[in-house]
């Protein structure tokens, strides 16, 4: 009976609705849908066209932030100018900043031999990429005058006198402060602290329930280490001495760790950055009195809070110390394993490191137009100043007072970075003993340097 009914139903069904036909159709549709994806996955755009890929975290993109749009436009214009005048064409590939810095795309690409032809490189990653053999030597493409024009800005991107990356900016650290908060507390510019103790006193005076008196970076990462180094250097501390020996366990290191620990322990500095780390919102919202930050925030203030009254001052120093700040900034680098490494290297030098007026102007546009940075080339710094790029009180102070006491961000590899980071985090946020953390970090660094093989760590 059942058999008869099934037969009858099959007979009544439209001819296309059999199970076999359904399966065949499904399989066909699946294959058709999968084919383009599989075929496009067979090769990169570069393999097919010979075009170079330039991975970056600026553009092309659209953003509600006019500063970010200006930075994106600079990248787009730079590449468009190269493409208009050179046979080898370049495609800009934009990756969101967090994906670029903390994500797996860039390391995975290099690990699989598919790294971009041109990319942005931070000082913290320099040695790892150099020791991995993927940084093209830019020296043959550069004139000696151009190398001299960069001066010490190239130090952390040079190995044995050869240049492996070209800095696009120099970003000094300073202390930003809210002038209204300052004045309401009866303070004036004459009260700007020059010593650590005075800085803590003022931070203590300015703090309130919803306002941090003084902010240091709290999130673990390369940025936190970068912002901490000047406090160690000011007392004469070093991670590694001139001969490459571990020098981390020193009085200067301990007092720098103690400074941050005291600031947090006494509630002067918060344990997390105000406004979830948004500097402009933190200041505008009245949640911050002083914040150790970089020059890059000047363009953000200009874009988002042009009327906000703020000032900057040099980082205060410890008793008997010497003023120093850290100079950050990213570089252009070319992939030595690119199918066209010569053209990639040539592009980096053409964009930032040639003696042509265009290259200098391009750097000026980046440092005082699209962003707010100190130019890494002497000629660009002068030209930027002549164009009025450092005329504002804040930028002038950065150029004339803060930057001259600067020292390049170190290029320590991950193991060294992590040991220092753990010491900062342990003392600052877990209230661990400064001496013990310093000693532990020094031992970890020493264990690493004993077996380290590669370019000089300093």
């Amino acid at each position, binding site marked *: 009976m059942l058999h008869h009914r099934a037969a009858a139903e099959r007979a009544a069904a439209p001819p296309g609705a059999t199970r076999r036909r359904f399966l065949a159709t499904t399989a066909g549709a699946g294959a058709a849908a999968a084919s383009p994806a599989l075929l496009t996955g067979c090769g990169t755009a570069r393999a097919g066209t010979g075009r170079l890929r330039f991975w970056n975290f600026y553009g092309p993109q659209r953003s509600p932030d006019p500063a970010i749009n200006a930075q994106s436009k600079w990248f787009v214009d730079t590449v468009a100018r190269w493409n208009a005048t050179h046979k080898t064409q370049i495609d800009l590939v934009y990756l969101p900043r967090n994906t670029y810095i903390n994500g797996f795309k860039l390391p995975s690409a*290099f690990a699989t031999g598919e790294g971009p032809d041109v990319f942005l490189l931070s000082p913290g990653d320099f040695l790892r990429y150099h020791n991995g053999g993927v940084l093209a030597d830019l020296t043959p493409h550069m004139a000696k005058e151009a190398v001299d024009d960069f001066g010490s800005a190239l130090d952390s991107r040079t190995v044995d006198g050869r240049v492996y990356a070209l800095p696009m900016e120099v970003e000094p650290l300073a202390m930003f402060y809210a002038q209204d908060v300052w004045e309401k507390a009866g303070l004036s510019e004459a009260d700007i602290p020059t010593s650590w103790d005075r800085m803590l006193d003022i931070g203590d005076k300015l703090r309130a329930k919803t306002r941090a008196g003084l902010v240091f970076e709290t999130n673990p990462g390369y940025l936190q280490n970068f912002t901490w180094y000047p406090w160690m250097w000011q007392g004469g501390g070093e991670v590694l001495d001139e001969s490459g020996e571990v020098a981390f366990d020193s009085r200067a290191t301990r007092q720098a760790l103690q400074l941050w620990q005291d600031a947090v322990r006494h509630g002067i500095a918060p344990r997390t950055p105000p406004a979830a780390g948004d500097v402009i919102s933190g200041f505008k919202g009245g949640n911050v009195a002083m914040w150790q930050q970089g020059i890059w925030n000047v363009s953000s203030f200009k874009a988002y809070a042009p009327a906000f009254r703020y000032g900057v001052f040099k980082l205060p120093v410890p008793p008997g110390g010497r003023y120093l700040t850290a100079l950050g900034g990213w570089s252009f680098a070319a992939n030595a394993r690119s199918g066209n490494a010569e053209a990639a290297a040539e592009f980096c030098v053409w964009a930032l490191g040639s003696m042509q007026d265009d290259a200098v102007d391009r750097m000026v546009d980046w440092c005082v137009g699209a962003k707010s940075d100190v130019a890494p080339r002497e000629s660009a710094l002068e030209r930027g100043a002549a164009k009025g790029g450092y005329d504002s009180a804040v930028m002038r102070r950065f150029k004339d007072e803060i930057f001259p006491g600067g020292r390049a961000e170190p290029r320590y590899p991950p193991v060294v970075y992590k040991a220092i980071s753990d010491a900062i985090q342990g003392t600052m946020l877990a209230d*661990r003993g400064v001496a013990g953390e310093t000693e532990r970090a020094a031992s970890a660094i020493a264990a690493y340097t004993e077996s380290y093989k590669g370019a000089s760590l300093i």
Partner: protein
Amino acid sequence: MSGVVTPERRATTAPAGASSAARGPRLRRERREWLAAGLFLAPDVLGLLVFVAIPMVLSFALSFFQVSGFGSYEWIGLGNYRRMMGDPLFWDSMKITGLYVVVLVPVLFCVSLGLGLLVKQRLPGVGAYRTALFMPYVISLVVVGVLWKFLLDEQTGVVNRAMRAAGFDGASWLGSPGLALGCVIAVTVWVMMGYYMIIFLAGLQEIPREYYEAARLDGAGPWTTFRTITWPLLRPTSFFVLLMSTVAALTGGLDLIFVLTNGGPANGTSLAIFYIYQQAFGFGEYGYASAMGSFLVLIMVIVSAVLFTVTRGGRFDDGE
């Protein structure tokens, strides 16, 4: 009795020609069913093979090499495993992971079950409640992280403002080692509870209503009804939730940690999966990360096996 011919006996007693004629269509049908099953399973099996099984095997193989991250591989045998055994940061991250799993899984289980029981009731607008509770699960973890970062902000966060309004001091939720992991667990529960609530709801709706009616007629109260009917009959669902949430706790939460704490403060939220990711993609230590990843998989297999054994795989009793 002898007149009764079972299909099996018919097959043996029927003429050869008739036998093959009867078996032919059945075999063709069976083959077609096998083919259909194979075709339907193929995409999943292929996906698992390509994206899970093969990478796992390759990762295990990688764990015996020193990998530069730029194409060079050097055989070091058990070197990465020896390094793992002596790495205090890895063991710290394992301890944090253990604590995370031990707290998260029971809390998530109870909250999801409670919500499942709640939204099973015939309440006005219950559909809206179900949707609202499920909503966090469909939001990107990055967005969730940013949202909670603002809510838990030390100075201006809603949580601290509410506490201050109630006369308490605020706390540094994400900046204190003792609180940050708890906050990560709470946010994870908030995100995941909607998903497991739906799983429990499906399990609860499978329980025949007649059982509850009979219990009510017998005078059983809500607790007795839950203890004697709901809980035992939810066993397969409970097992599923327990297993899935344990595996999720052991391997998930990376995006949330990245946005909320970046493993801090003082490595206080550095789960094993975060530490492994950091070693691989932050430091280029692919071989070492693979060794730790393989170890984590082993732990996961052991935990799953224990769960299967203890709960008998969610079966009601032996033989069913």
